[in-house]
């Protein structure tokens, strides 16, 4: 879809052809999502140790990609909309990463301070 160019070009462009998902595609994506749900439940039983959360996030990421690309039509949409979604996720990662690294850096200090205050009457 021509989000910004339709107007700046100043031409009354022909109405765009929307993407219509075929039944096969919709069912296929749904089946894939169900299968991945099964995989993630099964993977949780399997002890990956510390990697558990990353495996789960990776599978969730694939599922999210399928929903965003096909159910939400991003694959066929104006790229700006996909850029928006990706950018928001980048920002979440920034927020999460920095806050997390600061908190873990600070945790020993907080622990020590808590013990000190517990020790002194």
């Amino acid at each position, binding site marked *: 879809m021509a989000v910004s160019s339709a107007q700046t070009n100043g031409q009354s462009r022909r109405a765009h052809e929307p993407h219509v998902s075929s039944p096969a595609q919709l069912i296929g994506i749904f089946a894939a999502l169900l299968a991945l749900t099964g995989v993630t439940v099964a993977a949780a039983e399997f002890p990956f140790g510390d990697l558990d959360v990353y495996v789960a996030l990776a599978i969730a990421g694939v599922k999210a990609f399928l929903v965003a690309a096909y159910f939400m039509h991003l694959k066929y949409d104006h790229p700006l*909309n996909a850029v928006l979604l990706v950018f928001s996720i980048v920002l979440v990662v920034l*927020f999460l990463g920095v806050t997390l690294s600061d908190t873990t850096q600070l945790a020993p200090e907080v622990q020590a301070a808590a013990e000190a205050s517990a020790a002194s009457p």
Partner: protein
Amino acid sequence: MIAEAQLSQGPAPHADETFRAHHFETAEQQFAAAKLGMWLFLVTEVLFFSGLFVAYAVFRVLHPEVFVNSAALLDTKLGAINTVILLFSSLTMAWAVRCSQLGQQRGLVLCLSLTIAAAVAFLGVKGIEYAHKWHEGHLWASQYGGPQAGETFDRAGSFFSVYFAMTGLHAVHIIAGIAAIGWLLKRSLRGDFSPAYYTPVDVVGLYWHLVDLVWIFLFPLLYLVG
């Protein structure tokens, strides 16, 4: 493709000017605006939920054992059922968009009704889970262990605070989605939508898929890896 063949015979997309506001030059421009507006709103939703994910990450990294032990208290089976229900509702919503694009009036009504039914079922399962947690005293930090627990402090409360905040906020979004899809249903019964005008179905669909997206992450993070 059948779909494309049908489409080429019907009216041009966004050709219906009935619902065009005066300040747009074409209905096509209005559709683009609505879609961009909804995507911007979804961006705000992603960042709105981000705070809870950050809190989850911080508490989990600081106290991994608490999260592992507490997550075992959640019912994975109910969580998985709810995941399937929500994925199904996403399918019916996507199908509703397809129906509206192709002018399949009855299909549209059916798909929207199924989506609402799935959403209600999701809330029902959620309600069962909540009732169970309430009964067990697995509540958020200040109420953990139930009212009789007194002043004892249990870190498991942190997990359940995160659990209730995340699933609670998500449930609020489900309720808002039911309202929005109900509005679509009302309009579709009135016959507002056609291949020439289906903007509301498309943008509400986007919102509904985002609600699903959030759950796709909540389910493993809360129920599985804990």
